[in-house]
């Protein structure tokens, strides 16, 4: 990794400058993470007196535990639906904003603000709309003969958290899609139009392929968002229920560790999550390297 051509010579100043960042990183990031790895190989007895080394036993247990595997599957479904819903809507809106010239800024302003809404608040808002007793949407659904109660139906609870999580993420995806669309060269579009390609043909054959780097980048970011930032959405709406219908991996780490005080299992789950983040970060950085040369 490069520095400047000429650098300062100083024995202690660079360490002093790095000290605050490194101290916080070591105390609050690396040390706790290493503790999580350590206790994922241990088991503590019910009274917390004795800790024994159990090797990979905690991992074997969670991988054999149907509730963990269910949470894994549910997280995957949740990630795919939130990503598809919010990216799809965001792309549609970005295409539209890119088409209107004069009012583009006006619409952008009206679409970006949900980024600043906390996930918990997003959860509360949609939970309120879908509230089985006083909510508006259950009343509407009633006309279509659908009985909405996300406290009873696991599928409906899943739909609720998907909508709430996707709603908050639309603005983020929208901004990146819009930036991608604006970098599509106008000359390409004009050339295609002269050759007789209509708006839809142009979109499929020119715009969409040129957007693929943006789409791929957003895919990774959205999966990351759904895995880690939706804790608030779930905690505000369903609390993982009914049953375990909306229990995602992060929510399970929290319930098992904080509420259930099962440190060994919770740590093993944390380490598995770290593995997932490392893979996602790796993919993201590999991809950024390539985009630079694009």
């Amino acid at each position, binding site marked *: 990794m490069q520095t400047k051509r000429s650098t300062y010579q100083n024995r202690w100043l660079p360490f002093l400058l790095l000290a605050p960042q490194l101290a916080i990183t070591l105390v609050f990031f690396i040390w706790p993470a290493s503790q999580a790895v350590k206790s994922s190989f241990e088991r503590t007895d019910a009274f917390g007196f004795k800790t024994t080394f159990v090797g990979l036993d905690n991992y074997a247990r969670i991988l054999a535990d149907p509730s963990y595997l269910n949470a894994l599957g549910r997280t995957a479904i949740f990630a795919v639906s939130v990503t598809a819903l919010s990216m799809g809507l965001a792309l549609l809106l970005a295409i539209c904003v890119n088409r209107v010239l004069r009012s583009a800024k006006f619409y952008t302003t009206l679409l970006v603000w949900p980024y*600043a809404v*906390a996930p918990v608040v997003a959860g509360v808002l949609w939970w309120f709309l879908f509230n089985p007793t006083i909510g508006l949407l259950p009343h509407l659904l009633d006309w279509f003969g659908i009985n909405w109660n996300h406290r009873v139906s696991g599928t409906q609870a899943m739909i609720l958290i998907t909508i709430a999580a996707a709603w908050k993420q639309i603005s*983020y995806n929208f901004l990146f899609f819009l930036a991608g669309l604006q970098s599509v060269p106008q000359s390409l579009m004009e050339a295609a139009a002269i050759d007789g390609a209509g708006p839809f043909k*142009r979109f499929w054959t020119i715009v969409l392929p040129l957007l693929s780097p943006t789409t791929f980048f957003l895919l990774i970011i959205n999966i990351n968002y759904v895995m880690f930032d939706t804790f608030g959405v779930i*905690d*505000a709406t369903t609390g993982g229920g009914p049953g375990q219908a909306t229990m995602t991996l992060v929510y399970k780490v929290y319930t098992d560790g904080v509420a259930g005080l099962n440190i060994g299992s919770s740590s093993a789950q*944390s380490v598995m999550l770290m593995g997932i983040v490392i893979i996602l970060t790796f993919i993201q950085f590999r991809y950024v390297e390539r985009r630079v040369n694009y």
Partner: protein
Amino acid sequence: MVENRPFLNILTHLVLIAGVLVVAFPVYVAFIASTHEPSAFVRGVLPLLPGDNMLESYGQMLSSGWQVGGTPPVWLMLGNSLIMALTIAVGKIAISILSAFAIVYFRFPFRMLAFWVIFITLMLPVEVRIIPTYAVVANLGMLNSYAGLTLPLIASATATFLFRQFFMTVPEELMEASRVDGAGPMKFFRDILLPISITNIAALFVIMFIYGWVQYLWPLLVTTEEDFYTIVLGIKRLMASSDRVPAWNLIMATVTLAMLPPVLVVLFMQRLFVKGLTETEK
């Protein structure tokens, strides 16, 4: 626009208006609910037009809070959120700009190691190290304190990378010229580097302020005393009591107040916000 298609233009505007309405609808309903009297929520369907109880709802929540719901006055929670968001934003920027300066403008042993240690924080979001981090904070006696709320969230690889990237684009001549003029590293940093980084700092500040404001899981763990509740956390506490006493007007007034500051920041600093967002996530 390549060609003129009136039908498609109308469709475009219709889609956009529908999109804006769908995005705003939940917030509109929450705001409307906050302007009604509690009795409006017992009869069934939510009202869709404003009521006349707005001042009472907001007044009560701001001044005295809601004892049944177990929350302190909203102004206190707003203050806590503000302290938390500002500390996180300022702290992240301060420690990151210093480390980026060290990494770019100095050659010293263990430079790569320091870089990788900072890089690793990207892979350790608070959600995956909840319990051991809680243990560290508890051992340091920082539960129910602003230090405990903010310090574990303050390290930032993204901010360090952003400043590093920016410093690499700063012309070499600036540093060489300042050295010829007899300025040491810290004088160069303060009088040259800091002023030319100001747009980046501002953009980053907007993003980090929002990041700090919307934090939920961490305050949920480290604060048990009402005096340290942030507004986002307070909403959850209010919700927990909603089954017993459905004071929806009070809850939704709090929700509205919780959304207002960060949303205003995004709306009024939109250019900086977009810049910060697109540059930190690379």
